[in-house]
Structures are given as C-alpha cells and as structure tokens.
C-alpha cells in the first residue's frame, strides 16, 4: 500500500513543514508564523484520523529502508523505517490534537514576544520528532526521534534565553536525558547484536525475552525521558520554559514517550527488569507526590504531579498491564495538559492585573479567591483535578483503576516486594487527591491574597477553547459508557484487554479503596487550604477533626513531604549538582580542573620538563668544552682515578687475596 506509506510520511513531516514555514515567513508576517503551524497541525490531525480509520480492523503497515550497507556480510542489517498500527495511529491523533490545542492557545499566550515565529517553528519540529517516535518501526528510528525531542525540548525550555533559570534548565534537561540515552543506545546495540536486526517487529516476534543487561539498559532510556528516579531532576527545572510548552512536552507527549516505548517493548523485557521498572516507578510515584505537597510554585506542583503519574504508569508496565498504562497516558495527556493551560491562564491574567510589579505570578500563596473572579476556569479545573485524583465519573478513574488492578493482581501472584508497591500505589492515590486540592485550594479557595488576584479574570476565545476541550475530554463518556468500569469500547479495541486472574472482590475493592483514599485526600486538602487561611486558630467544627488534621496528620504529611523534597534537592539533585560541581564548575577545584591541571602541569609539564632538562644538560655539557688543555687533562686524571678506585673496590678480595 504505497499511499499508506505516504500517509505516514505526511503525518510525520507536516508539522515540520509548518514549522519551517513559520520560521521563514515569520520575519515578514507575524500572523503567518502561527497560522502556518495551525494549518499544518490541522492537516496532521486529519491524516492521523484517516490512519486510525484505516487501521481500525487491525494489522500493520511497515516501511523500512536500509540505512547503511549490510555490515559483516549481511549478518547485521541496520534499517530505518516506520510502522503504522492502530495504537500508533491513536497516539498520533492524541499528539496532533493536543499540539493543535496548545498551538491555538500559544497564539494568545506568546503574543508580543520578540521571537514569536521561532517559537512556533520549534513547536512544529517537536511534533514531528515526537511523531517519529510514535511511528518508529525500528530501534534506530526510535532513538533518532528520542534525541530530536530532546533537542526541541532544549530549545523550548531555553526559549526565553535571557532568563538565567531557563539558561540553566535547558542544558540540564538535555544532559540528564542524555545520561538515559547513553544507556539506551547501549541497550539498543546489545539487542541488535542478539537479534541481528534493528527491526522492532522481528525483535518482538522472537518471543523469548532479552537478557537482563540489554533489557535494563533499554529501560534506562525510558527512565531518562519520562523523568523517573533517579533521573527525575530535570523536569521540575524545565518549568522555566513557556507554560504551553510545559503542557505539551512536559506533561502530555514527550515525557510520555518513555512510557510508550517501555510499553511497546515490554513483551521482550525479562521479569527482573520489569520488577526493577516497577520499583523505579513506585519510588518516583510516591516521592514525587510527596514533593508536590511541599511546593508553592503553581507549575512545579503540576510538574511533580506529572512525575508521580508517570511513575504510576511505569508501575503498570512493570506489573504486566502495559495497556492500562498506555490508557492512563491518554487520559493523563488530557487533564494534565489542561491543568497546565489553566496555570498558564492564571499566570497570564495575574501578570496583566499586577500593578505593583513585584508579584510572583507563579506563587500560589499570592493567589486565592480566584473561584469568584474566574468561574469558568474554576469549573474546568474541577473537572480535570477530579480526573487527576481518579474520582469516579472521570477518565482518570477508569485508567488508574486498570493500573491499580494490575499491580494488585501481580502482588497477589508474586508477593514479596510487590505488596510494598501496592501500598506505594495506593498512598500515591491518596496523596494525589491531597496535593491537587491543596493546589486548587490555594489558588481558587478563600479570599484573594494579593491585589492582582482580586482583579484576575477568565480567559476568552483562543485561550479558553483548548481548556474547554481538554476539560470536557476528562469526562468518562469519551472512553467508556460505564463510568465505574472500563466497558467494551474503542479503548479495549485499540489497546487490547488484559485478562487478570483475580477474584471478583478485588475488582470491586480496588476502585473503592482508591477512590476512597483520593476522596479523603481531596477533602483534607480542601479543608486545609481551601478556606483561604494559613494554619490559623483551630476551628472546632467537624468533630475536632480539623484539629487532628492540622495538629498531626497535616503536620506529619507536610513534614514527610518536606523531608522527601529536601532529600530530592539535597541528595538526588544535590548529587547531580555535586557531581557536576566535582566534575566541572567555574571556580574552585573540580575533576575537570584537576584533569586540566594534570594536563598542563603533569603531562605537558613532563614534556616541557624533558625539553628543559635536555637544554640544561646541553648547556652543562657545553661548559665542559672550554678548550683549555689543563682542564681536559684534569678531567682525564679524575676519571682515571675514579675508575681505579672502582676497580680496587670491586676486586678488593682478588687484589689483596683475602
């Protein structure tokens, strides 16, 4: 089907084409800069939908070409190419849809920026790189897309390059990602050597799992891109980029690429690697949820929330329910991108309303009471926040349920460390409710805590529309007719359905417990922070529960949260900083300086030393050549005496006959 191949090419190249037009025409007309990308993404979305309908019946289309000649007499063929199947097509629709919404939103958000059109160009290049990952039919193409999204992320995080934070966050993101990529590359090569091909279909078709090391190395790539422990340090800093970028790259698509890749490769990953992945996911999910509690930056809280949710998805893959994880990736893309866009709206309106000039528009402590001045934003936030918390009637409930069921089922089967992971997953669920209602409580609840917050207003038009779409997309009905369980529908058709062998009560208990925990977290968070008061005098309502909350539970939770955050900043990120400090820094001693010092004084010093020594010896020898006969005779006599002395000393016994 040659025209299916053109379809793939069209989907992948269209955004880059739009981006190029933006870049080229942006100088002459600002309007064209964004319109070109919008049109291109619209076409991409249409093509992706066509691809979905084409692949609906199943099957796959593959196109591959030899990238370089077969090496070693054809034992090893390095091919690059694409694969189109239903999952990839649906992923493409998701990426194109969210990119389209974010682009429309950015038209307003970035208005007046000096480099308006290059922003849209970078965005277009990013979408193409992301779609390369989605359609990658072999590991090399995957790796290429993998690094290109890293490059685009670097450019977009550092978009406001005059800001110090952005100037440091951008290289940090790329470098930390590259750590994962280096291992990923090693994993790819080992896998290629084993299977003799880079082709993913034949790798997956071989049936038996990879060995431990190749599997683990492959997973490292996902750990870097999806910002999992211990490579999570780059994502919170990446919030220095424009907010729509955070919505698209650092919530919905790029960071989800790790999950997508791990899910695709999970059939060939050995059981030990899957367990490692689940443990990594568990640590990330729990610690990030705790850290979200200790933050005051409107975007950083969402960033930690993203980490936590990605950790949950990784746990799902580890537990053997990759389809549930991919489903959560879909629903998460909607509500998390939406929440970021809400944050963007708030930052935008606060900056506009601020008259003092010293407002930190990202500090949630400066907000409050926005429920009254931004009623529609509040309602949409409610939809998306409840979906994030995993409350029934929302999409997040359906997808989180699948992951939790998978983890519980796996724990009942394997036991051991998996029980710990079950606990981690459920605690994370509760904490999710807590931090998101704390976030919403600080922002929307109570009374305004700043002048600007009192004069904020809802967004209209191009900025509001995407949030509406994403908010409404967070409701259950799009994914399943039954709000309490995933019914037969397009989701199970696309992703397949895992058959879990668990008793009926588990199916009932898991969603009840998770929704109960999340609900408790939501209520607790709202009661603590939704009243618009800082931990003030104890109100004696609610059977003194507030007292208990504030005195013990909240204090405990918060101190744990602060502790974990401190561990993260001081130990994990601290390790990165110390490492980078040890290896390279501007002043003071470091490994790089030590190497440079060794080079200058050790290695080169030796060279110069030899040169100097040669010169000295030469000069000294020259002084011997005085031309005075007396001196020569003197030296000769000295040498003769010395030789005689040495001879006598050595042959003392022979001479004297002892």
């Amino acid at each position, binding site marked *: 089907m040659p025209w299916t191949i053109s379809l793939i090419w069209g989907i992948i190249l269209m955004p880059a084409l739009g981006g190029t037009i933006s870049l080229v025409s942006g100088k002459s007309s600002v309007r064209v800069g964004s319109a070109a990308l919008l049109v291109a993404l619209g076409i991409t979305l249409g093509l992706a939908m066509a691809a979905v309908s084409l692949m609906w019946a199943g099957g796959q289309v593959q196109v591959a070409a*030899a990238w370089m000649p077969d090496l070693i007499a054809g034992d090893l063929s390095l091919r690059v190419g694409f694969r189109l199947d239903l999952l990839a097509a649906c992923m493409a629709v998701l990426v194109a849809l969210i990119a389209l919404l974010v682009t429309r939103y950015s038209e307003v958000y970035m208005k007046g920026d000096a480099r308006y059109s290059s922003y849209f160009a970078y965005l277009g290049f990013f979408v193409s790189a992301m779609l390369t990952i989605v359609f990658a039919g072999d590991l*090399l193409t995957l790796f290429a897309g993998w690094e290109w999204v890293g490059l685009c992320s670097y450019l977009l995080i550092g978009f406001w*390059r005059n800001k110090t934070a952005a100037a*440091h966050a951008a*290289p940090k993101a790329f470098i930390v990602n590259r750590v994962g990529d280096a291992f990923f*590359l*090693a994993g790819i090569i080992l896998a290629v050597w084993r299977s003799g091909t880079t082709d993913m279909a034949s790798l997956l078709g071989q049936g038996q799992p990879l060995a431990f*090391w190749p599997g683990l190395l492959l997973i490292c790539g996902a750990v870097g891109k999806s910002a999992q422990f211990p490579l999570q340090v780059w994502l919170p800093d990446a919030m220095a980029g424009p907010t729509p970028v955070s919505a698209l790259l650092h919530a919905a698509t790029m960071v989800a690429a790790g999950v997508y890749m791990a899910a695709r490769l999970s059939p060939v990953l050995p059981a030990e690697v899957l367990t490692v992945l689940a443990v990594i996911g568990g640590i990330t999910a729990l610690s990030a949820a705790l850290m979200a509690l200790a933050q005051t930056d409107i975007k950083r809280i969402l960033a930690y929330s993203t980490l936590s949710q990605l950790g949950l998805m990784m746990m799902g893959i580890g537990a053997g329910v990759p389809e549930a994880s991919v489903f959560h990736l879909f629903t998460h893309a909607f509500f998390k991108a939406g929440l970021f866009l809400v944050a963007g709206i708030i930052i935008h309106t606060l900056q506009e309303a601020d008259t003092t000039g010293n407002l930190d528009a990202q500090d949630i402590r400066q907000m409050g009471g926005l429920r009254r001045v931004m009623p529609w934003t509040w309602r949409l936030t409610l939809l998306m926040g409840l979906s994030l918390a995993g409350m029934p009637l929302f999409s997040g409930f359906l997808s989180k349920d699948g992951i939790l069921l998978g983890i519980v089922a796996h724990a009942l089967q394997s036991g051991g460390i998996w029980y710990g992971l079950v606990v981690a997953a459920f605690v994370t669920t509760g904490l999710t409710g807590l931090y998101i209602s704390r976030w919403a409580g600080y922002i929307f609840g109570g009374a305004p805590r700043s002048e600007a917050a009192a004069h904020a207003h809802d967004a209209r038009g191009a900025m509001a529309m995407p949030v509406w779409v994403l908010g409404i997309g967070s409701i259950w009905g799009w994914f399943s007719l039954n709000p309490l369980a995933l019914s037969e529908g397009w989701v199970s058709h696309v992703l397949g359905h895992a058959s879990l062998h668990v008793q009926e009560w588990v199916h009932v208990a898991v969603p009840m417990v998770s929704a109960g925990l999340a609900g408790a977290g939501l209520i607790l968070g709202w009661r603590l922070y939704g009243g618009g008061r800082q931990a003030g005098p104890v109100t004696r309502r609610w059977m003194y529960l507030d007292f208990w909350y504030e005195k013990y539970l909240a204090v405990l939770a918060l101190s744990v949260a602060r502790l974990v955050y401190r561990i993260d900043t001081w130990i994990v990120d601290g390790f990165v900083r110390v490492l980078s400090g040890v290896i390279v820094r501007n002043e003071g001693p470091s490994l790089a*300086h030590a*190497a440079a010092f060794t080079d200058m004084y050790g290695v080169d010093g030796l060279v110069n030393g030899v040169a100097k020594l040669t010169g000295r010896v030469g000069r000294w020898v020259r002084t011997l050549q005085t031309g005075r006969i007396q001196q020569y005779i003197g030296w000769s006599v000295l040498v003769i005496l010395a030789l005689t002395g040495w001879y006598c000393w050595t042959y003392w016994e022979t001479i004297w006959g002892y």
Partner: protein
Amino acid sequence: MGILTLLIVLPLGALALLAMVPETWTRVFRWTTLGVTLVQLVVVLAGLLPVLMHPAAGESGFVLQEQADWITLDMGSAGLMKATWLLAVDGMGGLLILLTVLILPIAVISSFEITQSVKGYFLLFLLLDASLIGVFCALDFLLFYIFYELMLLPMFFLIGIWGGARREYASVKFFLYTLVGSVFMLLVMVGLMFSFTDPVATAAAGHPVHTLSMLDMMQTGPEGWPSNLISGSFFDAGRTLLGLNARLLAFLVLFIGFAIKIPAVPLHTWLPDAHVEAPTPVSVILAGILLKVGGYGMVRICMGLFPEGMIVYSPWIAGAGILAIVYGAMVSMAQQDYKRLVAYSSVSHMGYVLLGLGALQVTGLTGAVYQLFTHGITSAMLFILVGVLYVRVHDRHLPNFSGLWDLMPRYAFFTLVGFFASMGLPGLCSFVSELLVFMGVLGSSIPLGWILVALSGIVWSAVYFLRAFRQLFFGTFDAGHTSTWRPLLTDLTLREYVMLVPLAVLAVGLGVWPGPVLDMIDDSLAHMLHQSLTTGHRFLSAPIP
C-alpha cells in the same frame, strides 16, 4: 599522467608558477590557490569517486594504481634496493583524499583573512596540499615517508610565522613531537626494506631485489604468510631486538608515532598549543586533515604490515581510546578558551577512532574510519566558528561573551548545527561513526563496564558543548566592559557563509545518508581486516626458532 599524480603535481606546479609572481599581487595568490583546490575537488569528484564507487573496484580495493621507477640502488652484496613512485587508493585512502579536497578550498577561503606575507603563506599552503594528498595515496614506504615528513615543514612555518603570541613555542613543540615518531619510522623502514623482496623484479634479475612497496609487503600466500618476506630476515617471525620481539617492537614504535599524530592521551599536549596559536585556516587543516594521518597510518601501516601487533595490543588500544574519550572531555570541560575547548574535544573525539580500532572487528573499524571523515567535517566547522568570533573582537575567553544570539542569530544557528553534529545527534554525521564504533566494541570481547565508561563520552560532550553554548548565546549581551564590542559583533558575512554552508550540508548529509560513503569503504576495510587477522594469527602461532 594518472589522476593521483595529477592531484599531487597540480599544487606543485601552481607553487612553481606563483613563486615567480611579485609579492604584492595578493589577489593572484589567493584566487590561484583557491582555483587549484577547486580543480582538485572536481578531479576527485569526477575522476576518483566514480572508480571507487564502482562495485568492480576489486576485492583488495586498490584502484588507480600508478607505478614508475624512481630509485634503484645497488647495495653490493645486500642486493638491489628499489623504491618506486607507487600511488593507489582503496576506500579508506580515497575517502581521506576526498576529505582533503573538501576541506582545502574552505581553508583557502578562510586564508583570505591572512594579510601578512601572503606570498610565502600560499606557497607553503600549496606544498602542504601536495604532501597531504601524497600521504594518503603513496604506497611505497619511502614515498610515504617523504610526504609524511614534507607535511611537517609547511605546518611548522604556517604556525611559527602566521600564528599567535606564543607561536614559536607552539610550532617548535609541534615539530619536535611529530619528529619523535618519524625517526623511528625511518628505522623501521630500513628494516622492512631488508626483509622484503619484489617478486617480479627478483624473478627478472635472478638475485634478490629489495622492495619498499607496501603492496608487495602486504601480499600474502594461501595460509596468510607474507609471500615476499625473506626467511631469516630482520622482520621474520621470532626475530628479537634487545630481547624483544622485533616485529612487535616495530609495531609499537610506529604506533606511538601515529598516536602522537592522532593524538592519543598522553601524547597530545602539542595539539592545544598548536591550535590556539595557529591561524584559523591552519587549525582547520590541522584538525580536519592532519590528525587523520595518524588514524590512516595506524590502519594502513601498523595493521597492514605488523598485523599481529594489532591483535596483541588491541585491548591497550581500546583502553587508550577510552582514556582519550573521557580525559579529553574532562579537560575540555574545564576550558574557558573557546579554541582550546574545541581542541580538547578533538582529543576526545579521536578517542573513538582508537576505540573502534581496538575492537578489531569490521563494524568498529568502519566506524573508526568514518569517524576520521566526520570529525574532519565537524572540527573544520567548529574552528571556523571560533574564527568568526575571534576575527571580530580578538577574544576567545568564553566568560567574556553572553547573549550573542540576539546579536548574531545566524551564527547561533550554525554553532548549534556544529555543536550537535559534533556531539552525535542522530541525523548528523558523528552519530553514524559513534554508533558503528560502539556496535563494534559491543560485538567484541571488551567488557561491558569499560564500554559504558566510553559511552559516558556522549554525555560529557553534551556537557562541554552546551556549557559553551550557554555562555556564548544565552543571557543578555553585557553592555558593560564589552560595550565596545557591540558594533563589532555583526552576523555572518558572505565569505563565512561560503565556508559554513557546505560544511553544515555535509554534516547533515553524512548523518542522514551514510550509505554511499560506507559502501565505498566497508568492502576494502573488511578485506583488509580479514587479511590482517589471518596473517596476524599466522605470525602469533609461528614456531619461534
């Protein structure tokens, strides 16, 4: 006249003509030299490449062979010695000649900046041109040696006269360093000459005719034993010198000579000094072409003539590669001088060549040779980028710059391409060679732990390049002590585009579509490696008399 001879004679002829032109006609020197290099480029593209690309290029891969009698010396009882004008190229040699003729026109355009003693400069440039081409296609050892030494002479003066403040120190250091390798090469050459005979001439003359032809030296019989090796001669199996295996000793001293050239840690300290002092075009040639002579020599001469040395020392060579990758990157990270940073990054990147060689496996070897080519492109680009900044403000101290993106957006774009090409982003050229090198080592017996250490190199390269990029382009342009720079820091000129655009196109093209180039080299490399391994193992298992 064959194509290869033409390529060598062309610059020499131009040199002879230009020597008669008065000093003041600077334009004549510039444009004639540019014309010569462009003609060379056309000759290579139209004459050399089609032959090499042709599938019938032959198993052993040597094509366009030209041979003419040159020196025949009667050495009395020792027989006759015969050195010939023997030129031929295989995939590797052809690729490096292609690199040379691609880089040279760009270096000439960059040389338009030179205003001091233009005549001398371009005459030396043409001499360098001829010797570089010669080194990559000479297959007579004496001829190779002469071209190899001839390279040093113009380079010494180009750095020593047209260089920066410490130019004398740098040029003398460069000269002495590389001379160390050459002296040993001379000794090995004499030994080789007494150990090999020319089969055809010997049969015709009826008594041994000693040869210097590397083709004769590499010719092997059915079991992999060199057919023209005189039994009991200096380089026969099992002969010792100072209690050491003579052949392994010869391998080592030659290898050290080439390791200085490439350069390998700890023999590299001439490089940063030479680069920092050299004018931009000389840096471009030095990093773009001259370093490649080291890698070329290792494969052609060390591996070709003493293959068992490669087998015995391959773990050490790979180790040296890993050391160079990590050490070079570390030192690069500590640099505040832009040009020194790029120079040390070359040390790091040439480590991949050593690592690929040490894998002793065809994928790694192909990667190593491809790295020679891609590093030629990227390093030339990086040095030109450094030159763009230096020619404007005469400063290379990175902390003095910031926020240049606003002032020079086009320059920022090309720097981005150059940096990411150099750090091996997929789709750009270095990725292909790094991928092949790592495929080679991961398919060899080198332990995984060591390979992961080497792999950290791709992280370190991101660290130092992105750090430099942040210092140069992020932030705001400081209007304080550098305010006088603002009018000077203008975006790229037409001449700079002419240099940077072809390099950027090549960097992308070689990364996206490496097939043709790899097609050109992989057959001859596979053949060469196979033959070397057979011969090497044959030597290692030979009974010691």
